[in-house]
């Protein structure tokens, strides 16, 4: 698998310009030095406490996500294209959310089957007829991209609810700056560190008008046992806002307050990192201890903003995903810049037949799964596993979608045996306000560390890399040209 995949660095004649300096560096640095740097990075991450809490699975409850020291590089032009495509896509997703919770034009225009919305667990009837400030639903979106060829990116998945990983994007860059200052100085890399400021701007813009120019913004976390707890605290820290747990908040007369040492204090914007189901036991799951009773009534009264809005799950559902290109055409009147992976919906009879006949070649996913659980990778599965999935699909076809196995691109990665190609994906983070869409240049590159594996999820043994977007692309061959000029003018010896 890895052998046929597109190698983002390339080698020899096909070495790609953006990677020239990295290739040089890798050639010149003894492997023992690279290994030592890798060990140093681990100490650094452990000390800062950049951990991924995994409770109840045995082993170290504060696990480190492996960090690979070889960066993934995107040329400027590549990024410009991606960035335009991401902006377009997220604008369409927000328009779609406003529509499905509003007039539902897209259903009446027959662009999306009604039952995919009405019968969907992710559709929140509570949100119907309510419009959040500025009409933005998914203020923070994470769009997963994969690449199969120099000019071919695909959107693998939209994350419109509570996408995580942005702290790794920022900390990976910090680690690289600390470990390899000279290497970074040889490139001109677009900085990512204004993300927290952009995030705060985005959250403040979501505030109810009443809150005035300086709204109180907080982050709501499920608590220290959540796998992304580090990230919640990190972002709160970077933005200078409080990170809260449910019991720190209470609602009185549909107004949300936090409990402080000086008494109660009104809250205007909640960046919630809790799923819809757990937000408010009065509105959703009654057995939840994580949320705040009465929160949704305060939200619907327009007294507090929730980011992202409840009900965003309908936009990133895998059953809705195949229709995103149609959304872009329908709401924006534009052709999609970023491609979708061709997707078969098992509930359609023709699609289902095709899936069952070719299951050993396809990736089959739960329409509503996450974290890499409950999926079948046909080419890597045994016959028995394929048959078991086929039976599941026959029993509940509406639960499954299937896609071709893409030859995900690879980036050289430092593994125990040395430097080897490993598959990667990319999650940029897209921030939306009513006036602007902001994306810091880069994103989180996840890497499947096991040879041949396509699964990059951190819960499934994936690692991460720093993602560099070059400020300016190196002119191809410019270095050797200038060298030959030096030589022809006879001044090479003077250097």
């Amino acid at each position: 698998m890895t052998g046929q995949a597109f190698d983002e660095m390339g080698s020899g004649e096909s070495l790609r310009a953006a990677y020239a300096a990295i290739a040089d560096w890798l050639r010149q640095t003894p492997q023992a030095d690279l290994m030592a740097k890798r060990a140093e990075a681990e100490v650094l991450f452990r000390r800062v406490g950049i951990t991924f809490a995994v409770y109840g699975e045995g082993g170290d409850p504060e696990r480190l996500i492996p960090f690979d020291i070889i960066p993934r590089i995107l040329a400027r032009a590549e990024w410009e294209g991606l960035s335009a495509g991401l902006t377009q896509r997220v604008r369409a997703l927000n328009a779609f959310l406003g529509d499905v919770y509003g007039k539902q034009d897209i259903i009446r225009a027959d662009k999306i089957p009604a039952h995919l919305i009405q019968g969907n667990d992710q559709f929140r009837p509570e949100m119907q007829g309510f419009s959040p400030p500025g009409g933005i639903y998914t203020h923070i979106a994470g769009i997963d991209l994969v690449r199969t060829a120099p000019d071919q990116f695909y959107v693998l998945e939209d994350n419109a609810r509570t996408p995580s990983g942005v702290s790794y994007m920022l900390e990976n860059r910090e680690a690289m700056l600390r470990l390899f200052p000279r290497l970074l100085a040889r490139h001109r890399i677009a900085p990512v560190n204004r993300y927290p400021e952009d995030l705060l701007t985005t959250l403040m813009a979501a505030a109810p008008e009443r809150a005035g120019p300086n709204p109180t913004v907080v982050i709501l976390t499920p608590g220290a046992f959540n796998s992304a707890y580090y990230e919640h605290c990190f972002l709160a820290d970077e933005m200078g806002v409080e990170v809260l747990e449910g019991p720190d908040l209470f609602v009185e007369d549909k107004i949300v307050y936090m409990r402080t040492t000086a008494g109660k204090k009104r809250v205007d914007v909640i960046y919630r990192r809790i799923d819809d189901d757990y937000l408010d036991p009065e509105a959703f799951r009654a057995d939840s201890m994580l949320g705040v009773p009465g929160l949704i009534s305060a939200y619907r009264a327009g007294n507090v903003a929730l980011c992202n809005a409840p009900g965003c799950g309908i936009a990133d559902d895998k059953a809705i995903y195949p229709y995103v290109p149609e959304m872009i055409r329908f709401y924006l009147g534009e052709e999609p810049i970023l491609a979708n992976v061709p997707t078969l919906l098992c509930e359609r009879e023709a699609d289902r037949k095709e899936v069952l006949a070719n299951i050993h070649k396809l990736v089959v996913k739960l329409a509503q799964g996450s974290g890499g659980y409950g999926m079948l990778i046909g080419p890597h599965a045994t016959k028995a596993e394929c048959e078991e999935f086929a039976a599941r699909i026959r029993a509940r076809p509406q639960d499954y979608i299937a896609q071709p196995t893409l030859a995900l691109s690879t980036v050289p990665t430092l593994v125990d045996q040395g430097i080897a190609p490993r598959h990667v994906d990319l999650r940029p983070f897209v921030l939306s306000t009513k006036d602007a869409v902001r994306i810091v240049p880069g994103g989180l590159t996840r890497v499947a560390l096991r040879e041949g594996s396509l699964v990059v999820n951190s819960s499934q043994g994936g690692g991460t890399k720093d993602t560099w977007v070059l400020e300016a692309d190196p002119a191809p061959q410019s270095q050797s040209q200038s060298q030959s000029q030096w030589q022809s003018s006879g001044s090479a010896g003077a250097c």
Partner: protein
Amino acid sequence: MLSRTADSLFWLGRYTERAANVARGLAVASRMAGLTAELNAEGDEWRSLLVAAGCEPAFFEKYDVVTQEAVIDFLVRDPDNPSGIIPCFAAARHNARTVRTALTVDMWSAMSDSWNHLRQIEPGDFQGEKLPGFLEWVRERVLLFNGAAMDTMLRGEAWLFVQLGTSLERADNTARLLDVKHELLESEADNTVAHGQWQAVLQSVSALRAYHWVFRDRLSPARIAELLILRPELPRSLAACYNRVCEVLDGIAMEQGGRRGDPHRMAGDIQARLKLSRIEDIMASGLHEYLTGMIVSAAELGQAVESFYIRP
């Protein structure tokens, strides 16, 4: 500031201070045990330590006799003893993690590095010959943490609540330590054993040199008591600790537009008593009674802080 954050910061201050105090106590006991058999004649240096740490009953639920090894294990590692060094660090680390955002990177690194080391430690790393080195390390880690707070923390409420926890815990510890030795300090016996014990009391609060600087005289029980109770220039004396507690409570009130309550009144009362007392009167009316009163006051003040700021 969030009440929950204040709670965690207050206890973060208390637990780190407690860990260091237990280490100080153990270091002195170990030193006493290492001196002549006569000095350690009662064999109860270890037992006093359990009393000072407030965990004598818990110890005897587990052990029948006081042995050096058992006490060390109980006070360093035993997960059943919440006042032990490692459990204190675990609790402090947990509190630090829940208020990660209120700490500076330097404080967090100090805490995290300490914890990463401690969680891998085994009895062989702190028993026997290894004990003094280990205890020194513990004290250094707490000094580093306190120094990081001192040097990097914004002087806002977060800082004030950490300081409140640290000062109150320190006051409590000094009172307990003196109380364990109250009989010794009240007797007029002046012999080698008593002298060694007096030294130990001063050493456990790093005040032996301070004594000489302040009094320029031989050790005497009343002066030791005076130094540790009434002298504001010794940072671990009750007077100094309560001056700090009042200062910190004033700071918090100022942050909140002058809002004051029971904690301010109670701390002010203790501070005034310490300021106006004479050591002769304290000794005459009974050192033990006085110190017991101080230990009770510290507990009541802790309760008042809780119900005023944290769980109103």
